[in-house]
């Protein structure tokens, strides 16, 4: 049984996680929940890229011993891209959380509906 038997399962899981994350972002009213949903949504994107890097019979792209012709290695490029994307993700998350903290201080709540109430009465 090889990894290839997983076939397209990765893609289906990625699709599912993407939709779950987006759902949280669009529908939930609590700001921190939405930030968590955003992180999940970004995670799905990572899964898509890394799924691409696997090659049947290959190993990680690190030459522990000098490479022989015919050795198979996983594709290093998606890994590089996602390393960058992960850090971008946490940068956005951190900033979003800082803003949420300030919103709590200014409005007393981090629920969308209650914030609108406060603004309407102001």
């Amino acid at each position, binding site marked *: 049984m090889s990894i290839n038997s997983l076939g397209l399962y990765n893609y289906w899981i990625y*699709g599912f996680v993407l939709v779950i994350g987006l759902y949280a972002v669009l529908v939930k009213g609590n700001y921190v929940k939405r930030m968590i949903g955003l992180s999940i949504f970004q995670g799905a994107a990572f899964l898509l890229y890394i799924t691409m890097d696997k*090659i049947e019979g290959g190993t990680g792209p690190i*030459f522990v011993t000098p490479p022989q012709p015919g050795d198979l290695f996983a*594709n290093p490029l998606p890994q*590089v891209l996602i390393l960058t994307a*992960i850090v971008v*993700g946490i940068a956005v998350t951190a900033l979003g959380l800082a803003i949420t*903290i300030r919103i709590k201080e200014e409005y007393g709540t981090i*629920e969308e509906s209650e914030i609108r109430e406060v603004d309407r009465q102001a």
Partner: protein
Amino acid sequence: MITVLGLFTLTFLVIAALATVQSRNLFVASMWFCIFSLMMAANFLILDAADVALTEAAVGAGVSTVLFMGALSLTAEHEHVRERSGWLPALVLGLLFAVLFAASFEQPRLGDPLAPVHQHVAPFYLSETPRLIDIPNVVTAILASFRGYDTLGEVLVVFTAGIGVLSVLSFSPKKNQQLSGEGVAERVRGVQHHAILRVAGKLIIPLLMLFALVVQFHGEYSPGGGFSAGALFAAAVMLYGILEGADRSAKAMPQDWMLRLAALGAMLYIGVGIVCMMLGGNFLDYSVLSSKPVAGQQLGILLVEFGVGLTVSTVLIMIFNAIANRSTY
């Protein structure tokens, strides 16, 4: 064996995602998110992406969770249930999933060696790296040299987030506001009442820092590099802050010094590039840094990775301290 493992991690990934979104208690949601990240990291490992697994574990499961919890302790513990009517987004998202599902049948199967991504650019990197750069970790070679410009952009993103958090949280909270989350009656410093946690935790901190340094400088030979090392080092400081109290960690790593070091990290990266320009090459062309191009490449990679590690660690520490010390700001 690996198929079973892969199936398990993937399926559990979805379960964790669902649990995260559904939990009403936000601390529980954060923990589920941590599990989600760990499953993601495990999956990356199964897919032969060791560097990414390391970084995802450190950043997603480690730093992200701490930041979420820190923010939650300042905002709210429970989510209020007044959601907007969810049927339209659910419908659209369901359609989206159907489209993605249908498309998957035309995409290359997992592991297919004939897939386009394994032709063209990837074989070049794998075959030419020993000749041009001569470091074993091809991912680091691409990250720091072939696509070093992207990584520089990355460092700037992190730096921007750092000064952003400083800027946003620089406004002092209103004096009469009850800031701490529900249930915190008195100010407790760290986990001072839990002796086991303190002792065990303090044993881990120096090991973690050492591991971070290993990952940083050994990143050319093994999975690692600036990002994961920076996150690990920041995690060690965060652990100290959690155990001993955030004010102590802020005193150990003062904010203004963190800002300066973060700027230094970015300047180091840019500076290496500029020196390359002055020595006659293009921006970030390390080959001109030494009489032997390969040596120049290795020197350049060492320096810029250090810049990355410096900026990432200091910015994450800065953000943690800013959030964790909020009530005393």
